[in-house]
């Protein structure tokens, strides 16, 4: 049994995608933890962006809200939601982390309803800033536990754009050119998107899992890269910083 849990793994893997000097739009929880970890390990100048207006803070601790005071602590800007989203719309923000109740093979996300919109079985919060971040930020990533109920053939509601219907459908949609889903990081594997079809593709499998597990826990057919790597587990340093500095109360990484 490994000395880390799947959340710690996902956060560590995600944090390595954030190079120094990059900009990343995040929400609370795991995405924020990944951004904080990146800042403390290899990317001190990572610019963290919050939709409510906080831009470039040095987060002293995990925010409870993307609008609380931590999100503009020692920030370069305590601006407005318009300011943040205009930065994104202008092409200034490289990455964003999003999630949802459902995701499909093109990385489209549902965080609005299960069932009929008029009288839903389950009402979820809706887009918030997710549709905006996914429309504007260059590379959208998702950290999520993987199972067939979440990875579905068809979304009940497409809240947030991935590659839409795949191929060149997003390029034709009117959304800013060249932006879209980049990596999907789950407890079992890491996926990217095949350049032509824009379909989700397994590129590395996490320690302790087989390709079989990954496929069985996905409601649609996954593409598989020619060479599949094993996902590099969290380093001792990543774990120490994550546990001692980023999330000492283990709100996100759990016990």
């Amino acid at each position, binding site marked *: 049994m490994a000395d880390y849990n799947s959340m710690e793994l996902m956060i560590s893997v995600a944090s390595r995608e954030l190079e120094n000097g990059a900009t990343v739009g995040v929400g609370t929880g795991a995405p924020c933890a990944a951004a904080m970890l990146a800042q403390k390990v290899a990317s001190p100048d990572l610019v963290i962006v919050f939709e409510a207006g906080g831009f470039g803070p040095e987060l002293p601790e995990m925010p409870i809200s993307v609008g609380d005071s931590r999100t503009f602590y020692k920030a370069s800007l305590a601006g407005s939601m318009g*300011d943040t989203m205009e930065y994104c719309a202008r092409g200034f923000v490289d990455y964003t982390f999003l999630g949802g109740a459902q995701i499909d093979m093109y990385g489209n996300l549902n965080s609005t309803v299960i069932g009929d919109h008029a009288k839903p079985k389950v009402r979820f919060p809706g887009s918030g800033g997710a549709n905006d971040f996914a429309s504007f930020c260059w590379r959208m990533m998702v950290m999520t536990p993987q199972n067939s109920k979440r990875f579905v053939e068809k979304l009940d509601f497409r809240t947030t754009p991935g590659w839409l219907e795949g191929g060149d459908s997003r390029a034709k949609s009117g959304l800013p050119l060249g932006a879209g889903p980049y990596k999907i990081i789950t407890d079992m594997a890491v996926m990217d998107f095949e350049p032509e079809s824009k379909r989700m593709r397994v590129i590395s499998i996490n320690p302790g899992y087989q390709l079989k597990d990954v496929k069985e826990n996905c409601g649609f057919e996954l593409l598989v890269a020619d060479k599949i790597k094993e996902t590099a587990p969290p380093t001792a340093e990543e774990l120490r910083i994550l546990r001692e500095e980023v999330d000492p109360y283990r709100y996100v990484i759990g016990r």
Partner: protein
Amino acid sequence: MNVIESGMGPVFSNPDPDEARAFFRKKNRTKTNKVMSLKEAVEKFAHDGDYLAIGGFGANRTPVAACHEIVRQRKKNMGFAGHTATHDMQILSAGEVYDRLDVAYVVGLEARGLAGASRSYIQSGRVKVTEWTNYSLTMRLKAAAMGVPFLPTRNMMGTDTFKYSGAKTIECPYTGKKLVALPALYPDVAFIHVHEADIYGNARFKGIAVADLDLANAAKRLIITTERLISTDETQRDPSSTKIPYHVVDAVCVVPFGAYPGTMPYEYFSDEAHIKEWMAAEKDPETFKAFLNEIIYDCKDNEEYIMRNGGFAKMNELRALELMIPKEKK
């Protein structure tokens, strides 16, 4: 002009800038003392059926006391702009204040979890819902503030969020690119909580603005709730610090801790324990009824609410939390 696609959601407010201009033309711009109780302000400026919008961001510099007063006065059939509406939404849902909802983010409490009562109210089917995004709602307010009927953006396209919105897509006359056109949103009444305001309504706040600058300009009637009054000498000394000028303000209500149990930047942190109480109470209708009586209906005003929730001792604790003052140093 040729509209490419139209969302099927209803637009709950009139985007016509000429209608709004006729209203704004009549607004009083003399320097009059607008200080009144929150009770009086809500009676005077918030009416059943009005379209309501509030400032801040969920539980951050949110006019919570105003939401309580709206519920206490049992306002009904309002429209509501739900841009990251979290604890504010919990309160307004508890009072079933609104029956039509522009949604960007609702029924959630961010990292805290989901707001059960808001969720069941919306799932009841008694609420008309149109989908938007946080940025889209901000831009709809900006369009109103700018006195134009719509603004173009590049989000929402290719999604059901667009399909269930009231937006349209158009073609850019310069680039031929497809764009979303968002209709202006002029709320009938808005509440914004600030750190400081003078008696005329010149208001200041620190930290993020969220959508409040555009909201202040877009709203037909604007009530400012403020942690404290400052002199007009002070607002005049430093006009660069005024965020909301008095011309757009209808009432100034002095409400210390008016954002509690949410966060007020540099003043007090959110009372997570109390918000957890809410979430727990919401689970059982009877418990929730009693809880609401205790903290809203049986309270005369925000002061009584604060006193019932720990008074100054609690507020001092939350201040220390907000300022990250280590316990031992207190």
